[in-house]
């Protein structure tokens, strides 16, 4: 019996789609049968991030409306064993499907797949309601910014009141150099406010931008973000993996200043 995980954030542009693509690829690398579903109706993106945009024939709305069979709409990612994409519809809007229909679809998919990942649209309207309808778990993606964390807090409240209690947090685009200078909230600052368990912190990594340009996931690549994503996938399947110390990528001088600053702060407070 598979597990339905919704990847959500409230605020747009924090990295939900990139995260969905990479976790999907990562879980399939770990020998799981995975389907990723783009639930952002009218603003289809997951296919582009995954580099599968030229293979779309049918979409989520076609499946729900019965225009085609599920099999016909699924796109298999040839680079991975057992990774499938169900793309969104570009010319329809969020009212084209209902939470009930999504619930039915995900429960059918559970029979066949180990993991069903839902890329949730930004916002808290019907698109969000559709995406969370059949979810067993949620991964909340945020960046260390006031607006993103505020939205994440609101989303967590909504998920909890919708009886989705299994929540985990990804802090995305963290810059350790800025954290050390006291100009970016740290992973601890973010988890303290949101008070849900952390499943991974992804550094702001050029490789992610390059990967997105090429339509290729960074997972498994020899980059910091690739390694962190792989660890997140391992934690999803229940392996206990230690967290990578992101500051190890900083140079000697940056670490020295950080140590100095910490010392100063300890004395002032």
């Amino acid at each position: 019996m598979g597990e339905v995980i919704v990847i959500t954030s409230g605020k747009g542009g924090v990295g939900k789609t990139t995260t969905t693509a990479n976790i999907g690829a990562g879980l399939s690398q770990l020998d799981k049968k995975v389907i990723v579903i783009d639930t952002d109706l009218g603003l289809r993106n997951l296919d582009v991030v995954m580099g599968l945009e030229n293979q779309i024939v049918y979409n989520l709305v076609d499946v729900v409306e019965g225009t085609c069979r599920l099999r016909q709409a699924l796109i298999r990612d040839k680079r991975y064993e057992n990774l499938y994409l169900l793309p969104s519809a570009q010319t329809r809007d969020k009212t084209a499907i209902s939470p009930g229909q999504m619930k039915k679809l995900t429960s059918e998919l559970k029979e066949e797949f180990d993991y069903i990942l839902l890329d949730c649209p930004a916002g808290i309207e019907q698109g969000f309601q559709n995406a969370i309808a059949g979810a067993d778990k949620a991964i909340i993606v945020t960046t260390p910014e006031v607006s993103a964390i505020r939205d994440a807090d609101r989303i967590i409240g909504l998920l909890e009141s919708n009886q989705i209690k299994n929540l985990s947090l990804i802090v995305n685009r963290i810059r350790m150099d800025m954290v050390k200078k006291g100009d970016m909230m740290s992973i601890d600052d973010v988890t303290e406010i949101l008070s849900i368990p952390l499943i991974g912190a992804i550094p702001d990594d050029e490789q992610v931008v390059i990967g997105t340009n090429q339509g290729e996931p960074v997972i498994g690549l020899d980059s910091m973000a690739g390694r962190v994503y792989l660890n997140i996938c391992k934690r999803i399947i229940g392996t206990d993996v230690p967290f990578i110390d992101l500051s190890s990528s900083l140079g000697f001088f940056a670490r020295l200043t950080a140590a100095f600053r910490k010392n100063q702060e300890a004395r002032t407070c």
Partner: protein
Amino acid sequence: MLRSSSVSVAKNRLKTLVTSDRVCCAPCDYDKICRELYSSLSKYIELTEEAFKVDICRNYIRITFAGDET
């Protein structure tokens, strides 16, 4: 050499925002909530204003009234 960090500003702004989001009230209502809780609880428990603290979390409200947090 070390200027005050922008993180502390961000954290304070964020705390005010999430507190008022969580109880759906204006930021100034938080003070009112604190005062009312203080006055009603002080009828039953010996309290000092300095030690009395109200934290509004997502699904519970924590009231601290002893000197150190436990």
